[in-house]
């Protein structure tokens, strides 16, 4: 493997490096700071995740946790770590990564910080379908998950078609998306007022976004989606660099604009939908994670993988706080992300009218 620094672009330790692997014949161009940030955020997420396995009403030492993971722990520890805490932690990591990546894709595509799936109605679509399943059909478990997935996908397609006028621009997508989200949230409220009190309570917890009681069954769909979608996104990200220059410039560079954008949008929708299905519409993660990591990485990288790592860290850390802050009572993780995210959204809107008007 050979590594070469591009001499022209050295700026405050902020350089592009060309990595060439002879065995596969692949030459990749990476941004050093983006790699460093991704590594650090992933390490931090992993550390919080392992720490979260030790913490709870029944504290288990780190050595015992590791022993249990290696299959040499006591049966009591086995149950707590492997059945209760491990799937919950892993689901948190996966859901956070999926929301972060999805938010980064949407924001870069639309060139607008507000264009994340939680703002433009994708998560709301999942929520309507799930609440309908819980309240009207009295479904639970995998059926709610499936309903959320269908709801998010249908909403995304409907939003795309409503925003379509000889192609879709970011600005129109956001406005249409906000409108669609408003309609869907009204529908959610309607379902809740019609519901039995027990169903309504269950629905409200799901709507806040919670990792409580996640099992291996909840983890599987989101893990598979990440494993399939992430490589696709990495390959198509190259087109995104051209798309960022505007549709005309991208076409001039030989990009099939509509097709590339459709692939990226579908990837973003799938990630957001499956993540929502796994843990409910955990608010603000898709909005915040890409922007905080962008502050760390700078504008030269697309910041897709850093956003995924940042999202994972955000969700596992928020879940740890949610579990322990009023222990033994657990808060849904969405409460913590909302406490962090809502002020950030206000700050964002106050700081840059530019972000609102650019399209």
């Amino acid at each position, binding site marked *: 493997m050979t590594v070469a620094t*591009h*001499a*022209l*672009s*050295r*700026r405050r330790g902020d350089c*592009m490096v*060309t990595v060439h692997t002879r065995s*596969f*014949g*692949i*030459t*990749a*161009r990476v941004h050093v700071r983006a790699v460093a940030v991704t590594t650090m955020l992933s390490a931090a997420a992993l550390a919080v995740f392992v720490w979260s396995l030790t913490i709870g009403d029944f504290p288990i030492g780190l050595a015992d946790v590791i022993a249990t993971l290696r299959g040499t722990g006591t049966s009591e520890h086995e149950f707590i770590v492997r059945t209760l805490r491990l799937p919950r932690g892993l689901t948190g990591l996966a859901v956070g990564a999926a929301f972060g990546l999805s938010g980064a894709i949407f924001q*870069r595509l639309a*060139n607008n910080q507000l264009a994340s799936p939680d703002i433009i109605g994708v998560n709301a679509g999942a929520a309507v379908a799930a609440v309908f399943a819980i309240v009207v059909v009295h479904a639970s478990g995998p059926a709610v998950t499936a309903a959320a997935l269908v709801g998010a996908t249908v909403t995304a397609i409907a939003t795309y078609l409503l925003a379509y006028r*000889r192609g879709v621009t970011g600005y129109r997508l956001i406005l249409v998306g906000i409108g669609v989200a408003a309609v869907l949230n009204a529908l959610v409220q309607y379902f809740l007022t019609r519901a039995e009190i027990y169903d309504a309570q269950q629905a409200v917890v799901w709507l806040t976004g919670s990792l409580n009681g996640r099992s291996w069954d909840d983890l599987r769909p989101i893990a598979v989606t990440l494993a399939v979608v992430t490589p696709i996104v990495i*390959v198509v990200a*190259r087109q995104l*660099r*051209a798309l*960022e*220059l*505007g549709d*005309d*410039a991208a*076409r*001039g*560079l*030989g*990009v*099939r604009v509509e097709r590339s954008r459709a692939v990226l949008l579908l990837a973003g929708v799938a990630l957001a939908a499956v993540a929502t299905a796994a843990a409910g519409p955990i608010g603000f993660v898709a909005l915040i994670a890409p922007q905080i990591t962008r502050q760390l990485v*700078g*504008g*030269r990288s697309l910041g897709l993988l850093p956003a995924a790592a940042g999202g994972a860290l955000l969700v596992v850390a928020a879940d740890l706080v949610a579990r322990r802050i009023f222990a033994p009572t657990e808060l849904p993780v969405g409460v913590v992300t909302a406490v962090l995210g809502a002020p950030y959204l206000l700050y964002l809107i106050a700081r840059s009218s530019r972000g609102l008007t650019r399209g």
Partner: protein
Amino acid sequence: MTVPDRHPSLDAVSVSLGYHDRTIVDHLSLSIPAGQVTAIVGANACGKSTLLRGLARLITPTSGAVLLDGQDIARLPTRAVAARLGILPQQPSAPDGLTVADLVGRGRHPHQRWFRQWSAADAAAVEEALAVTGISELGDRLVDELSGGQRQRAWIALALAQGAPLMLLDEPTTFLDLAHQVEVLDLLADLNDRDGRTIVMVLHDLNLACRYADHLVAMGCGTIVAEGRPTDIVDAELVAQVFGLDCRVLPDPLTGTPMVVPVPTRRRQNVAGRGDPAAAGDAAEFVSAGNA
């Protein structure tokens, strides 16, 4: 940089272009002279940008065809077209936080694959494009920090790095002050001189178009009113027909190319005369100087 080894031909054959159901360019035929600078001029909304967008395959003709080297551009793979034809859109925008070298590097897109994202040829092309456009020392600067003229140079460098022997530019001088307009047009003329790159641009300023174009295309209402060498076709009658402007056409004292001097309207004279006698005197002096 890949120096164009030959001149691709670009022809419009009876093309109609429009948006939605509105036809803007109607059955227009045009051959772009290879290795020359062509300027498309015309009044606002006459379809000059639409024509350029059609030539650049940014919009698909509703009838007729645009031919690149004799082949229908709409049927060629867009990436193959990108290797031969580069475009500079009107008022392009770069994402925040991008450096000039990064922006120019994105011009190499048609030469890259996902598994081969950067090569020595890419680096060399970017370096040369920066050098040719005179912005080598700005490579590390952010695009947002540049002046209007520098930014336009950076975008032209992107099109250069793309390595296409044919460049289409949509109003490359809009929103630039006069000095920067001349700077950008000089750069384009140099590119044409260096390696015979074919340049097609939409321009607002008729006098600058006459100076820099080998071939002038004057458009009105979606059709070509006249085309040819500026000295051969630009006269008061054409300007009246295309711009609805009463003018005199004089030879440019520095280049001998046609220079359009609008005839002062009565209203303007009245305003000047009524308001400030000194200004009216200045205006009269200016007009007589112009006539001399």
